[in-house]
């Protein structure tokens, strides 16, 4: 700090006396001005010095200029596309962002430089992956300069259907998602090799990775995997432990599997044929049930053709606890029923098929009307999840959804989760058939069919037939909404965005052509439900239009 500033900081009343000078011609000028007070003189000197300094700035010199971005290999997307993309990137409509990114990647283009920072600033993983290959050389170059854009620097590999030659290298050094993909392929090719890979790095992997890698063991599971699975039972992570136990159960020759079969074998008994009295009783019971959840309307429980009886275990065996069976029942379920549920849940459902010589549908429909229906059905559903028993998914899904009020309070979230998992595992064609049958019904409960959780799991793009049925259903429901005052006909703001990105290309024109009765007419005369529908359908049609524009401008 120079003398003058120091003096000004302390104050001339405290200064060492004497006038601080600048040591430049300014001093002489100020003296000539003949200013009496020391303070004023100092100010004038400081002012002149500042003015001179402002006119005498010298820039710094850089040693070198850093290298520019490498030349681009992909063509830039046309301005018309940029106009559509910019508001999408700035907004938060995730599904549409993902779709747009995929379109641009499909068209083999990169985003314009003006939009690069918006793409790099994306936060959600799904969306990032959809836009990763639109960054171009410049985007990746930018990412190397800013620590916040680490995600864009990662090198992702294209992994196809067969094991690549450098698979081990990808496993050793690649991005987590790529490692998983390559592991799955390795497991297909040679389970023993895949097991060794996992064993090698097991201790140093993060818990979520351990869970995913262990999950690959479900493919070509065999007795050879038993030793490693037993080791995994002692894992730090509860989820990994649980998965290891489940996988062990699925190895038929494992001690655990044998024990479980033994414990459950005598708990259920089945007889073909139903007594007439029982039939009538059960029928009456069914009619009283109130259908609360929307999916329940898709589930169709066929009439039982056999009788299932369950025997509740009398006491809690101490050895059960070691295998993860708990004593305390959740709210709404009796202790013994809870034990029954868990024991059934640990046995491969196909065990019953062999034992009873009956089909999954027969067994489940019988279980549904049995005295201990909740425990047996939920127990069976746990088993279906654990053992990935494909033939059982449909019947158990229907049964779980139809249980409704009968689901014990304490198990509500578990049942809901199981339904979600099973929905993902169910062959899409089966979901579609159920949904289309319900949509064709034309009843007021049609609205309940538009369930976001179901829509979300169906693979995209949807089959045209299914898509057309859904769009027709939406059209019909929205048309009725103008005058509706019923809360239950409120539109689901989660499902419509999914429909907008999931319907196949050939259905877009139909949506844009209309007619959409809800969009016509004087809004002031609508009910509040009508208002909501108009807003939702406007957004819906807008999204479809955006899709159409992107496809056209990208030349796809």
């Amino acid at each position, binding site marked *: *700090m*120079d003398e*003058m*500033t120091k003096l*000004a*900081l*302390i*104050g*001339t*009343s*405290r200064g060492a006396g004497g006038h601080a000078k600048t040591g430049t011609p300014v001093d002489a000028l100020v003296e000539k*001005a003949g200013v009496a*007070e020391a*303070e*004023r003189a*100092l*100010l*004038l*000197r*400081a*002012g*002149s*010095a*500042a*003015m001179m*300094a*402002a*006119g*005498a*700035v*010298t*820039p*710094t*010199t*850089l*040693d*070198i*200029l*850093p*290298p*520019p*971005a490498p030349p681009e290999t992909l063509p830039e997307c046309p301005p*018309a596309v940029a*106009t559509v993309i910019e*508001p999408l990137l700035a907004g938060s409509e995730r599904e549409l962002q993902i779709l747009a990114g995929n379109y641009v990647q499909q068209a083999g283009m990169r985003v314009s*430089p*003006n939009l*690069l*920072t918006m793409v*790099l600033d994306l936060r959600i993983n799904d969306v990032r992956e959809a836009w990763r290959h639109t960054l171009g050389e*410049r985007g990746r*170059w*930018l990412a190397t*300069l*800013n620590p916040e854009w680490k995600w864009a620097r990662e090198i992702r590999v294209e992994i196809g259907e067969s094991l690549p030659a450098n698979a081990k290298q990808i496993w050793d050094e690649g991005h987590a998602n790529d490692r998983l993909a390559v592991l799955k392929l390795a497991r297909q090719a040679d389970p023993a090799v895949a097991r060794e890979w996992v064993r090698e790095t097991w201790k140093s992997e993060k818990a979520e990775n351990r869970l995913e890698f262990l999950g690959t063991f479900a493919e070509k599971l065999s007795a050879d995997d038993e030793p490693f699975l037993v080791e995994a039972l002692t894992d730090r992570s509860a989820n990994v432990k649980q998965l290891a136990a489940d996988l062990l159960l699925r190895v038929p020759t494992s001690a655990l599997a044998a024990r479980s079969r033994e414990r459950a074998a005598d708990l259920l008994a089945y007889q073909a044929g139903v007594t007439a009295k029982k039939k009538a009783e059960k029928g009456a019971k069914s009619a009283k049930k109130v259908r609360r959840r929307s999916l329940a309307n898709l589930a169709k429980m066929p009439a039982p053709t056999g009788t299932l009886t369950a025997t509740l275990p009398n006491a809690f065996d101490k050895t059960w606890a070691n295998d993860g069976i708990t004593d305390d029942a959740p709210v709404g379920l009796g202790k013994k029923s809870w034990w029954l549920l868990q024991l059934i849940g640990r046995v491969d459902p196909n065990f019953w098929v062999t034992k009873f010589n009956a089909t999954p549908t027969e067994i489940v429909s019988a279980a549904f009307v049995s005295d201990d229906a909740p425990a047996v059905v939920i127990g069976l559903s746990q088993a279906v999840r654990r053992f990935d028993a494909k033939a059982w998914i449909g019947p158990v899904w229907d049964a779980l959804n139809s249980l409704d009020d009968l689901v014990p309070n304490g198990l509500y979230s578990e049942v809901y989760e199981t339904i979600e998992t099973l929905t993902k595992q169910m062959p899409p064609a089966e979901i579609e058939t159920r949904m289309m049958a319900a949509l064709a019904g034309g009843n007021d409960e049609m609205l309940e069919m538009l369930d976001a959780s179901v829509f979300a799991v169906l693979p995209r793009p949807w089959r045209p037939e299914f898509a057309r049925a859904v769009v027709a259903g939406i059209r019909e429901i929205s048309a009725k909404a103008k005058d509706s005052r019923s809360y239950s006909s409120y539109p689901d703001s989660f499902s419509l965005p999914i429909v907008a990105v999931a319907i196949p290309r050939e259905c877009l024109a139909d949506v844009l052509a209309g007619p959409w009765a809800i969009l016509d007419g004087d809004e002031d005369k609508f009910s509040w439900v009508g208002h909501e529908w108009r807003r939702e359908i406007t957004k819906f049609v807008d999204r479809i239009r955006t899709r159409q524009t992107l496809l056209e401008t990208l030349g796809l």
Partner: protein
Amino acid sequence: MTLTADQVTALAPDPGSANNGKKTAKPGNWANLGRNDAAMWGQCKGSALYNVAVDMSDWTTKCSCPSRKFPCKHALGLLYLFAQSATAIPTAADPPDYAAKWLEGRQQKAEKKATKAAEPVDPKKAAKAAEKALETAAKRHQTILAGLDNFDLWMNDLIRNGLATIESEGPDFWDAQAGRLVDAQAGGLASRLRRLASITGSGPQWPAQILGELGRFAMLSHAYRRLDSLDEKLRDDVRQTVGININQAEVEARGEIVADQWHIVGQWIDDDDIRVTAQRSWLIGETTGRVALIVQYKPKNIGNARYPDIIAAGTTVTGELAFYPSAFPLRAIVKSRAATISISDNIRGFETIDAFLHGMTDAITKQPWIDRWGSLLKSVTPVVNADGDWVIADRDRSALPLLGRDHWRILALSGGHPVNLSGEWDGQFLRPLAVLYENRFTLLSSLV
């Protein structure tokens, strides 16, 4: 003539209108679109059918809707549509009646104004007006002198007690004295004083900076008391810096008029003042190479206020600027416009940072209270180091620091290659305003 969406957004009165305008910019909403060299028009289907017209020489808009915002969302929609794709609006020879009438009306108004200005003045009226003006000026002069006396005493006290005593003072400290200056009709000095609030305690250099600024104020008050012995032009500068404003008519009458192709290379909105927002636009003349600054104000407390003139960044206006009388004419207003086109890459600018800084040195030598200098720097490269410090470097690798720490967008547009960048330099940092590259003009700050 092309327009970018960014430029349209810059014309919007607020972000809400800009968004509504974008929503209206769908071909399905419009009928009977057309344009010729002078204007653009169309009918918009809003809650009724609205007639919209745009005068393309200065972007003034007209719409039959009841909105009091200018431009309204319908006009903005038409402009956005044009920005999206010029072909969306077919060319036509003649505008429809409603547009033609309006354009004609504007033409007549402009002609009337010109003839009125050229009219001979009634000598008696003129004499009386002049006398009144002198009286007011004399009164004001006394008020200012008294205000400056107070101010000087206040500054002396500060130096006597030491600047360390004010390190922890908030903006109220400065506002109080600024208020007194405003009362003394020295508003220009008051605004400059208020800005010191953000420098206090802001870094290791703050005492030297504050001292420098206070010193300049002392120079100003010193000069004001010696107005008569100053050069005529410098006299204008001292008066204007203290805060004696002159109106448009006087600027056009007394100031230098320069005709050229004026490139509007950069623009930003200074939002600091509580009562007004200031739009600062930097221009450079293609033939004369002259640098000009246009400052417009808009009051904050009035809902639909707008800037008096439409200064669209990224365009080149062929016309006349009237400079405020000064020893180094810098601030200007638009006197007349003939045509407007989009800016292109090859326009004039400063080829090196040295040349740019020399421009400011030249300015300060003639008018020492000039504190900001802006223009277009040609072929400069943005560079960021590992600490997150940004500079702009020219082909000789001379570098100026950039204001702020988030210039990734500039780097994205440049890709490490030289680009043309407009900026405002305050002696320490360059505030980047716009990037011009491959004939694309991108305004960096968010406007409105």
